[in-house]
């Protein structure tokens, strides 16, 4: 959908919500007409390509394979021209995304419902609406917006099928040079976010640097607390001391992160809420087993993971064998 003859586009910029607002619910196509009536040659080409030998799709009185629904209303090599009914709102939306740098397009979802079989001679018309435009999403391909349209396809005014289609308009990620997968590529690799360290939690990160997991203990009432806070949630005292956790714990709860793939993270991975032997709970990565094998109650043991040169994090290795110990 991008014009290869257009001048180079600027790097992608975030679009303000108000720039995208107003497109939802607007038409994407109005009174479009299929280029050709449903016809046996196109059905036969489709079936040959797909290797589909369903008997209903051939013979003297064939029906079209239902999954051909979209093929009938594609613009083809020469485009729809005025027959396509392409609505101004849709062109403006795609143009806006192109100019913001989201020039590439890939189809991600297709949902079709077939209300009655299409037969040779059926003349199809269609109308489409822009259902949704997503906020900016970070995907494996790059950052972009999902645009969902819903098309109604009719024959002589009667609805014969619906077609919901989702595309991702995205800014392709710059590709690291193939010839140099060495340190240069490593430096290009996005880094995990850095912790925000302030005077309330600096002691915790000093502990991590020293290979210790430190918990706060209220100097007044001896209540343990985590994460680090300036005052005691039980008695309110601002006085505290730090105690070193033994490093033993159990998986209290967890999630397995599949999507979306944030830069520097490689899904799927497990994030656990670990209850330490001391009684407080903390959130961190669970390592040492496939994410799908993590279970509540598994033993978890503290480790320090050197994520990169500048970041060390406490994580927990789960011990499946000890799960019922």
């Amino acid at each position, binding site marked *: 959908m991008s014009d290869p003859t257009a001048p180079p586009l600027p790097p992608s910029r975030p679009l303000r919500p108000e720039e995208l607002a107003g497109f939802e619910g607007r038409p994407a196509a109005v009174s479009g007409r299929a280029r050709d009536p449903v016809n046996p040659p196109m059905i036969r*080409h*489709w079936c*040959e390509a797909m290797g*589909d030998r369903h008997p209903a799709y051939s013979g003297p009185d064939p029906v079209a394979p239902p999954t*051909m629904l979209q093929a009938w209303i594609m613009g*083809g*090599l020469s485009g729809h021209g005025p027959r396509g009914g392409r609505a101004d709102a849709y062109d403006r939306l795609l143009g806006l995304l192109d100019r913001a740098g989201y020039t590439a397009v890939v189809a991600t*979802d297709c*949902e*079709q419902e077939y209300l009655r079989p299409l037969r040779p001679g059926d003349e199809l018309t269609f109308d489409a609406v822009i259902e949704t435009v997503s906020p900016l999403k970070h995907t494996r391909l790059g950052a972009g917006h999902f645009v969902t349209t819903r098309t109604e396809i009719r024959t002589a005014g009667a609805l014969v099928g619906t077609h919901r289609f989702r595309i991702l308009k995205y800014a392709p990620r710059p590709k690291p040079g193939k010839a140099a997968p060495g340190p240069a590529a490593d430096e290009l690799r996005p880094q995990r976010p850095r912790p925000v360290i302030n005077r309330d939690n600096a002691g915790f990160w000093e502990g991590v640097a020293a290979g210790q997991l430190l918990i706060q203990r209220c100097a007044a009432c001896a209540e343990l607390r985590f994460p680090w806070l300036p005052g005691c949630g039980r008695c309110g005292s601002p006085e505290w001391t730090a105690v070193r956790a033994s490093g033993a714990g159990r998986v209290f709860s967890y999630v397995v992160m599949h999507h979306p793939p944030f830069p520097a993270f490689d899904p799927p991975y497990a994030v656990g809420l670990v209850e330490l032997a001391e009684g407080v709970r903390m959130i961190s990565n669970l390592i040492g087993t496939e994410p799908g094998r993590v279970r509540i109650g598994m033993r978890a043991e503290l480790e320090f993971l050197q994520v990169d040169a500048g970041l060390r994090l406490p994580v927990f290795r789960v011990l499946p064998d000890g799960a019922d110990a």
Partner: protein
Amino acid sequence: MRPGDELPPLSVPVTRTLIVAGALASRDFQDVHHDAEAARAKGSPDIFMNILTTNGLVGRYITDHFGADATLVRVSIRLGVPNYPGDVLTLSGRVVSVSPAREAGRRAVEVAVTGTNRLGRHVTGTVHVAVPAAAPESPADGGGA
């Protein structure tokens, strides 16, 4: 036929010819589906299968299995990793639900479909297909696989 039943898998060699033939049969002339140089210029290692072909293959997989009297009612798919030339797409399916017999002696079967290749999951989806209520317990064999 019961919920939980697995359909026998179907392996489809993803040849360059299939990708191009599928793109043309679906009137999809985006260059990334037939022109390897153009695909590379856009950051893809090669041409890749278009979504309409994947949709067609998913539909074929279901009707191949349920036989000549099966009619597709609804097909919903989501794409994951691309299908590049040289891959093998392996489609598998599991019956999710089977409705009681309805009008015209047919029942609706909902099947969860997954298609994987060497890169991972190419497609996940759900297909609703209408089959004769008197369909035999064992799946129709043949059908054209």
